[in-house]
Each structure stands twice: as C-alpha cells, then as structure tokens.
C-alpha cells in the first residue's frame, strides 16, 4: 500500500513541467535593441533557454574594408556602434596611427589640439551613448518618461556634434592623424569660444540631472526590484565571456583601458573608474542588472569631470591634423584596443604596405557581452530577458558589423 503511494507521488513530482513553447523574440521586437532575434523556449513565463540569433544587420564591414583605403573605412566604423560613432572612429584611427608610427622613416605624430578635441568629443559621445542606454532601459522596464528625458538631453549633445562636424549620428569626425576640419574652428576664434561655452552650458545643465535621473529611476523601488539580483554575472563569468566596459566593471572588476592602458592623453586627466559594489539597502549584488546599469550612470559623471578638465585647461593652439600626405602604413600588423562606451573596442589590422588593409577585424564589445545572454537568462522570466538585454546594452550594428 505504502509503496504504491510513493510511486504515485513520484509520478507527480516527475512531471512539473508543462509543454515547452518556442517563441521568437525579434528580429522585430520593441526591446531587443535592434534586430536581435532570441529563440525563447518558454515554460509558461519561465525561460528554459534563450538562444540569440544574430546576423540580421550584417553588412560585411570587415570584407568591405579590404577593398577600401584607410580613410575610406572610417565612415564604415560609424555604422558599427552608431550610438557612439565618435568612439568607433577613434578606435579605428588609433589602430591605424599605431601602425603608421611603426614606420620609423616618417616622424608621425597626432597634434596636441586634435588629441584634446578627440577626448572632449568622445567623452561627450560617451555621455550621449549612456543616456540612450539609460532611457531605453527605463522603457524596457515599462517607465516611458526617462526615455524622453534622456532624448531631450541627448538632443543637446547631438546639436553640439552637429556644430563641430556637421553630422548628428554618423560623424566621420575623427580622421587618421587628427580630426576633421570640415567646419573650421581655429584656435582662439569666436567659433571655438562659442563651442566651448556651449559645452560648458550643457555640463552645467546636465550634471544635476544625473542625480535627478537616479532619483527617478535608479532608486525607484519597482525598478530596483526588477533589476536587483537578476542575472548575476560573476567576475569569473564576465572574464570568461570576454565582457568588457561597464559590463565587466558591473561584475566588480576594476578595469578601464583609459586608466590602465592609457592611450591618447587620458593619463593627463583625473577621473575615477566606477566599479560595482554590493548595495545592501537596495538588495543589489555585484554583477546583477542594477549594478551594470548603475555603472553607466556613474560613468556619465566621470565623463563630465573629464570634459570639465579640458574646458578648464582650454584647447591648445596648433593644427588639428598631422602632416600626412597619404595613409600608407608599413608592412605589419597591429591590434589596438580602446575604451568605447560599451567596452573594449579592438581593431586588428594586417597591412602589406599598400593603402588598403589586407585584413581588418573589429573586436566588438557587444558581441562578447551578448554571448553571455544564454547563460544569464536560463531559468529566469520573460520580463527578465528584457532586463538583461537592456543592462548589457547591446547595439546590433556592432554585434553584426
């Protein structure tokens, strides 16, 4: 008698799952941040597995590059991470410049003024990128208002970019050996003063708003409940998946290329690298969605600090473009990485001494971060998938290239 009862109860225990439902989230979906397609295997609301399918925005960037001269590739990098196109330009230009420096017969150097302009504009671009990330994350979690606040502020930044390079999204501003002079801004001119004044006005306007956004969204108890402890990416996991940038720092690893492998003139500025810590009063643990999100909010403040230091120093005099007849790097290969808003952006270039690269490979931070999604999302709910995608902040243009 007893044994039959036991077997019966066993049968009940063995069938806790209902049928599996396979749902395609994307490629057209409001919150997959572009054309990501997730194959969700659902058990009710619980996700048994989320398999990302990428490639819907693949445009053969790397193969194209093999048929273009180096300056011609820069507009293509704009289309990688179109949210932070300045940083993509810069990452590529830095790699080519390193390659050019290998040729000792030419004395190649990027002018000081160009370096300052690059840092200034790229940090502003980082703010714009993180603002978008903040806004869309709020929208992913159902709060629509932060999205419009973020766009309001981003609009001011885009107007600044428009002023300096004529474009709002795909800038093609940072060139090999300097920055674009398409809109002339001579040192000491009224145009320069106006631009710097406007940057300062933006910073004065924007800096208190970060705290306001923290009050509005970051510390909102529903928001905290939705993100704390969700999809914890441990430090080991972050390293093994190659997560970089805010995702890595969100997992508690103190690593920022701007500070640890300083390139350009970042060693001249004083800034902190925000790293996630446990926040017991909110219940957030290192590596969860809340921490990854919070890193971006803190990084905006640091970017403001860097830009303020540039404004205090003022832009140095001189040309904005190196004296470069033609971009013809020596034979060799280079891998150079820089800290884009979404993490380490690396470019691997093989040159055979011709004006076109033999091979070009982009190392995209979003691609690595996205690869962790499958492991992060196992056993969570549909709503959490959205929270994870938002918190790792992917841009499909960069994932697919």
């Amino acid at each position, binding site marked *: 008698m007893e044994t039959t009862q036991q077997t019966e109860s066993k049968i009940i225990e063995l069938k806790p799952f209902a049928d599996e*439902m396979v*749902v395609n989230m994307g490629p057209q*979906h*409001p*919150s997959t941040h572009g054309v990501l397609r997730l194959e969700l295997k*659902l058990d009710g*609301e619980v996700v048994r597995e989320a398999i990302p399918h990428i490639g819907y925005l693949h445009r053969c960037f790397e193969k194209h590059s093999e048929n273009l001269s180096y300056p011609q590739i820069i507009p293509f990098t704009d289309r990688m991470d179109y949210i932070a196109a300045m940083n993509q330009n810069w990452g590529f230009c830095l790699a080519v410049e390193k390659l050019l420096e290998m040729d000792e017969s030419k004395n190649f150097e990027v002018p000081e003024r160009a370096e300052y302009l690059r840092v200034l504009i790229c940090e502003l671009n980082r703010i714009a990128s993180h603002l978008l990330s903040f806004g869309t994350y*709020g*929208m*992913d*979690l*159902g*709060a*629509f*208002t932060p999205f*419009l*606040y973020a766009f*309001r502020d981003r609009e001011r930044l885009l107007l600044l970019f428009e002023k300096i390079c004529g474009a709002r999204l795909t800038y093609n501003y940072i060139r090999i050996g300097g920055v674009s002079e398409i809109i002339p801004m001579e040192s000491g001119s009224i145009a320069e003063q106006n631009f710097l004044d406007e940057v300062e006005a933006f910073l*004065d306007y924007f*800096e*208190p708003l970060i*705290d306001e956004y923290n*009050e*509005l*969204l970051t*510390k*909102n108890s*529903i*928001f905290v*409940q*939705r993100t704390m402890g969700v999809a914890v990416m441990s430090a080991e996991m972050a390293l093994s998946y190659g997560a970089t940038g805010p995702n890595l720092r969100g997992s508690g690893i103190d690593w920022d290329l701007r500070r640890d492998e300083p390139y350009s003139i970042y060693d001249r500025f004083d800034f902190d690298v925000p790293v996630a810590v446990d926040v017991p*009063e909110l219940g957030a643990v290192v590596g969860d969605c809340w921490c990854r999100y919070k890193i971006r909010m803190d990084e905006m*403040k640091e970017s403001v600090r860097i830009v*303020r230091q540039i404004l205090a120093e003022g832009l140095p005099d001189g040309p904005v473009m190196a004296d470069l007849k033609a971009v013809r790097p020596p034979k060799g290969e280079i891998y150079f990485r820089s800290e884009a808003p979404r993490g380490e952006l690396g470019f691997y270039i093989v040159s055979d001494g011709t004006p076109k690269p033999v091979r070009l490979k982009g190392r995209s931070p979003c691609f690595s971060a996205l690869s962790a999604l499958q492991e992060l999302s196992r056993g969570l*709910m*549909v*709503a*959490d998938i*959205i929270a994870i995608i938002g918190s790792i902040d992917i841009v499909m243009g960069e994932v697919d290239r």
Partner: protein
Amino acid sequence: MSDFRAMLAGFPYFNISENFFPNLRLQDGRNWAEEFIQNVVIPRLPEAVASHFPVEIGTVLVMFACAGVFVGVVPLLPLVLVLAERKVSARFQNRTGPMRVGPWGILQTLADGVKLIFKEDFIPPQGDKLLFLLAPYIIFACSFAVFAAIPFSEGILVSDFNIGIFYIMAISSVIVMGVIMAGWSSNSKWSLLGSLRSAAQIVSYEIPLGLSILTVVMLVESLSMQEIVASQSNGVFSWLIFRTPFAFIAFFIFFISSIAEVNRTPFDLPEAESEIVAGFHTEYSGMRFALFFIAEYANMFAVSAIAVTLFLGGWEGVLPGYDILGGFPGFVIKSMGLVFLMMWLRWTLPRLRVDQLMNLCWKYFIPIAFFNILGTGIWGLIFPEDTVISTSISCAIIYIGLIAAYKVAGRGLAQRPAPQPNF
C-alpha cells in the same frame, strides 16, 4: 454660498432628472420606467389615446431611450480621456502632446478614430475567426455595462439596483473572458502570453478588490450604490474612507487593485509593450483595436467612479447641505482626480514582473483585506452607530498611521545623500 444649491437648481442641466424624470430610481421593486409612463406621459396624452396606451411597450421604449443616452454619451468619455492621457503624459515628459488637429489638438482623438475606422480589418487566417470577432465586443460591452450602476448624481443613473456593487463586480469579471478569447483566437504566442497574464492578474486582483468592497458593504449594510452614497451625506468626515481606519486601508487596496484590474502601469503586464509586443490585442487592427482602446479608458473612468462612490462620498459634497464638490460636477471632478492619479502613476513608474505582481496580491493585499474585514466587524461592535466620537477616533488613528507610515517608508528619503555640488 448658501444659495449655491439654488443656483445649481436654476441651471436646468443638473436637475434634469428631478424636473423631467421623477422617481427614476428603482425602489421597493417598482419599475421606474413604468412609473414614468404612468405619472408623466399618460396624464399629458389626450384622453382617447391615454386609455389605449400600451404601457408595457412604452416602458421598454423608455428604458431603451435611457440606455441610448448612456450608450451615446459614455463613449465620448474615452475620447476625452485619451486626449487627457496624451496631454498629461506630454506635460510629464516636457512635450506639448498633440497640437495639430483642432485648437490645442483637442480633435486629435477624433482624427485617430477616423483613421482607425478606415484601416484594414485584419483577421489572422489561422486564428479562430468567430472568437476573434466576438472578443472586442465582449470587452466593450462589459466595460460599458458597468456604467449602468454608477450614480453620477442623485438622478443621473440608469438603474439603482439593490445589488448595484455586486452587479459591477460580476460584469467587470466577464471582461477577462474577452481577453482570453482575444488572446487565444489570435493564433499568436505573444497574444496568448498576454491574455493568460491578464487572466491570472484580473482573477487574482478581484479577490482583494471584492474584499475591500465588502468592508464598505459591512459599514453601509447595503449593496445599492445610491444607499452607499446616501450613507456619506454628512460632509467629508462621513465619507467612508474616514469612517474607520480599516476603510482607509481598504480604499488603497481597492484603488491599487483596480489599477491592476484595468491593466495600467505598474501592472500593465498583459499589454507590456517592451516584453510581449502588445499583449492580447497584438493582432487586432482598425476599429477592433479601437474598441479595446475605448474599453480600456472607459474602464479606467469606471473604476475611479466606483472608488469615488464607495469611499469618497460619491456625488455628495464636502459639507452637509451644500453642493461644494457635490452633485454631478463634483462626482466627475473627484473621479477625474483619481483618473489623473492613475495617469500620474503610469508615467512615473516602471512595470512589475509577474511573480512580483502575484506576490503583492497574494502575500500582502489579500491578508490585509481579510484583516480589514475582521477589523471592520470589531469596529462595528464597538461603535454600532456613527458618532462624532467614532469618526474622531478613526481620523486620529488614520493621522497617526500616516505619520508612522511616513516615518517608516520615508526613512530612505531622509537618508538620501545630499546632491553633489557642481565644481
């Protein structure tokens, strides 16, 4: 101020029922429509016609006429509310909202309605066609049927059932049928997910909703909406929300649960745009979609109006004997206040997750609602009659409770770090 009531009486609109529709209310089983025929129509007819007047048919006609007025007027409400929502959200978000169609964009909703009528009426080929076509009508009809029992003022209501609030609960539960039908028949996985979320949510939140209504029913000892209002006729402190501390809690449970019932943020999981596209109405287009939309906004007003009727004095004013915030305009102002609160919440808060939504209902609201019923019973034993003393004690407890709640919940506010100075 004393002749405020007289002033309103001079304004024919507000007293239309008193002047033209005597005894509109159903009392003691009398049929108001029949009485209207007997008392108003027949005496005014010529002698020869009056003796042969078919009272039964006339009764039905009068009822249809009244229903026609409601069916004609109430759908205008969402028209206003949709615009209000867009304008309110715009103000929250540093925008102006619709400005192009008509002055300040006030005709925008009308333009949208026209657009929706002309859109293709798409029916998913693999779906269940009959259910797909039926679902929006069920939801639409149910959310408008609720209005039949809402007393807008002393005379402006379709019917004062003796089981008014019970009827409202019953009718609004049928909405979930339409939602499931819509989700199932669309043959879309997102729709199905949305409709099942909605079913789980509405069924769960109906329990605290019903229990908090029960608190009111225990205090008033009637299910009739008009009697509930009539019991709150002695000014603001006779409103049920202040009558006992338990009713005060019940109001909040009722209001939050009704936000969940009408699927609005932070409980808008069934139509969570960023998660499951548009939930149960993903596959709907054109006028069928508009029906869902209208029903949603009508529902929003309906639950606010019910909350006002049950807890905030209905159409009774804030001072006994005066029509300040009373009558039809007062009722609408109070209801719109709650509607605005819902919009405010919607444009501020993120969305809960399914398990958190259920936790909130089953772990917090239902136990508290049961405790409320117990408390209301004990309160009724201690204070069988509402007196100045009982109301004062109740208000004092509410006041102390609010202070304590602020101290507990606002602790985080006080510890908030000071904003970083700009350097």
